[in-house]
């Protein structure tokens, strides 16, 4: 009986969800519930709002309206699969699940179904190797870039010498958190610093022993790979032990307002990496206010505009929209398919001039993808939290990663994947 009902509902759903064939369908696998909702909500809002802006202001992309199909995953891989299967029919163009776990599942599935997967700043790092991962794109920056940029920044701070320094890595004890370990180990050999690994189990509500350890070992710097409540607790505990905040650097997923606000003034001076600029001093926000917010079309509660993760969702949407434009130019038609979009992604170039034109000057780094390079230049900024003004401000320009160390690692990991799955290299 229940099954029959489910059948009925799903069948009608499939029927009603068939869009007018001319629209550009972009699924948004978001999470607005569950333990990681505070991160998922602003990201999804930024993603949706940017496409709403394009629809309202420009009438879509190349005359085609963009239709967002949102589906709730709660950061759960099983729900992620359900969402993927529910949305992939009906001309879904690209997936951006904002979860490393779901990304790992979708890599083989999207390749089999011929749909591009865009994972900026998360997911599988070695997917930067386009020779093996035909359908995955993770430019402009990935985890290993981030680890390298953090060390580069510290090198700059220390006049190029980290010998004898001690750097602690506080990480989420999961696939995501373990990503930078290999890179940092390599870099510690190269630059002669000691790496102390401090794992924190999900969800990370209790980190007393970790921070007592840091208090004892007195590392010169602490680098953090956290997500969700773990970030806020870590920053609070660091403040508790009076760890100097200026020596505490989080990855870009540990650098949103949610992470620093609960610690109040204690978080002042905390730094994090950033893939893109911060704040609302960009012309695009005037348009978003005019066409989206004041028009009452804002996604969610509309209270996240301008936050770090909102900008990140917006940036992902921007790259996707540019790839769609590129694909339209290549294929010569407005209603592109997923395969066209893959070509668009692969030949995408975003210059500083183009970013300024889009209302986001000096927001992201310019990059150009090729058949072999799906990872982009991988540079990142450092931002710092001002607890009094309650805002982030950028303290550096874009810092490039150390490709001498990263490229061999990426090659090694992608080669292992290619071997396990019998994939022949492309782009000869």
């Amino acid at each position: 009986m229940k099954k029959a009902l489910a059948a009925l509902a799903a069948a009608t759903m499939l029927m009603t969800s068939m869009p007018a064939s001319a629209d550009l369908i972009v699924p948004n696998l978001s999470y607005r519930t569950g333990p990681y909702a505070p991160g998922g909500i602003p990201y999804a809002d930024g993603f949706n709002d940017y496409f709403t802006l394009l629809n309202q202001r420009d009438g879509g992309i190349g005359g085609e309206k963009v239709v967002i199909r949102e589906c709730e995953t709660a950061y759960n891989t099983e729900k992620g699969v359900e969402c993927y299967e529910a949305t992939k029919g009906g001309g879904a163009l690209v997936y951006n699940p904002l979860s490393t776990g779901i990304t790992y599942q979708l890599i083989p599935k999207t390749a089999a179904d011929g749909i591009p997967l865009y994972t900026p700043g998360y997911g599988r790092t070695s997917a930067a190797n386009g020779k093996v991962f035909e359908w995955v794109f993770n430019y402009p920056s990935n985890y290993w870039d981030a680890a390298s940029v953090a060390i580069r920044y510290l090198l700059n701070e220390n006049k190029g010498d980290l010998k004898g320094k001690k750097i602690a890595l506080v990480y989420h004890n999961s696939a995501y958190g373990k990503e930078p370990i290999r890179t940092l180990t390599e870099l510690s050999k190269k630059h002669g610093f000691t790496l102390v690994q401090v794992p924190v189990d999900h969800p990370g509500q209790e980190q007393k022993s970790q921070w007592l350890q840091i208090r004892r070992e007195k590392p010169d710097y602490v680098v953090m790979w956290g997500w969700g409540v773990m970030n806020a607790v870590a920053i609070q505990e660091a403040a508790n032990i009076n760890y100097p905040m200026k020596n505490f650097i989080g990855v870009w997923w540990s650098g949103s307002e949610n992470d620093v606000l609960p610690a109040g003034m204690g978080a002042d001076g905390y730094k994090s990496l950033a893939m893109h600029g911060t704040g609302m001093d960009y012309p695009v926000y005037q348009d978003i206010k005019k066409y989206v917010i004041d028009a009452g079309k804002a996604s969610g509660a509309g209270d996240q505009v301008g936050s770090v993760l909102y900008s990140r969702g917006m940036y992902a949407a921007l790259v996707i929209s540019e790839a769609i434009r590129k694909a339209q130019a290549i294929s010569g038609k407005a209603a592109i398919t997923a395969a066209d979009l893959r070509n668009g992604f692969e030949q995408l170039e975003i210059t500083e001039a183009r970013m300024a034109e889009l209302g986001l000057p000096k927001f992201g780094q310019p990059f150009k993808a090729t058949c072999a390079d799906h990872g982009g230049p991988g540079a990142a900024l450092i931002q710092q939290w001002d607890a009094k003004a309650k805002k982030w401000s950028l303290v550096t320009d874009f810092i490039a990663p150390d490709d001498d160390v990263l490229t061999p690692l990426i090659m090694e990991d992608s080669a292992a994947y290619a071997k396990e799955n019998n994939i022949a290299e492309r782009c000869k």
Partner: protein
Amino acid sequence: MLYREAGDFKTSYVADSQTFPIKFDRIRYYIVVAIAFGVVPFLINDYWANAVFVPFLIYAIAAIGLNILTGYCGQVSLGTGGFMAVGAYACYKLMTAMPDVPFVIHVALAGFITAGVGVLFGLPSLRIKGFYLAVATLAAQFFLVWLFNKVPWFYNYSASGQITAPERMMFGIAVTGAGTPAWAKYLFCLIILFALAWLARNLTRGSVGRRWMAIRDMDIAAEIIGVNPLTAKLSAFAVSSFYIGIAGALFFSVYLGAVEVGEAFGIQKSFLVLFMIIIGGLGSIFGSFAGAAFLVLLPVLLKNILVGQFGWATDLAAHIELMIVGGLIIFFLIVEPHGLNQLWRVAKEKLRLWPFPH
């Protein structure tokens, strides 16, 4: 009228002790099996396989496994997630170490390995009883997850610790990996579930099952009448873990394709499977199916109605969905406290008397 014993004469002991003594039941059972094997595979598509049937079948295997331990033998376990992880990682190591062996053997071996681990963690059950026993299985849960996360050998030294199932064929058709056709996934899980459910049904009504139930109902009394608690409890742990290990192997290789231990096999999974058997009915194979259906299919159904039909915002729908599931659990309890299985049993009793209830 149709549903009664009267007029259905048994002429041999074998016929008398069959699983479904009532003719109507037998026919219904044959029809369900015929539809499951003969009709569904031809109609199924990717959405139905990946989002509805395959998870349902796999959770049903896990639920039967836990029901053997908790429902039939009375030993509370909150280590299901951890034991599923053992199955998944054993399957992964076997698949990558011996790619030429047929996949179904890997799955079976994964089950046996899990059975061994289960017996090990079942040892404290000889001393600790009741709800306190949960601590032993909880220790297993957290320790196993930690182990698979920490020791790189288990995930073949990959950078992030994710394990990904390579493609494996059965009779020339892929059953794991992204290229698997929907019907192959479904049928593979269905065959395993069918075999295991048949085995469980027959184990539980035989002498082994009666020993388990004696231990459950009162272990001291059972010991006095000659049931050895050591073998009874540990055999329940072994059989239950075997089922759960197979569920874990399928969950990883056929259903998800890539897993990360903390996320896929965390404590929430242990609770979820426990909820399934309590809601479905403890000590009942049918209850395991009903509970799995309730907790796997209902959320998908609600989501499709709320988001797909009414067009609600996804977050609002997700919250309301939780409220409805919770509300329904409470409602069913108040109507019938002994699980969905009891509702089914009451319905059958009513049918037996229909249309002359007096």
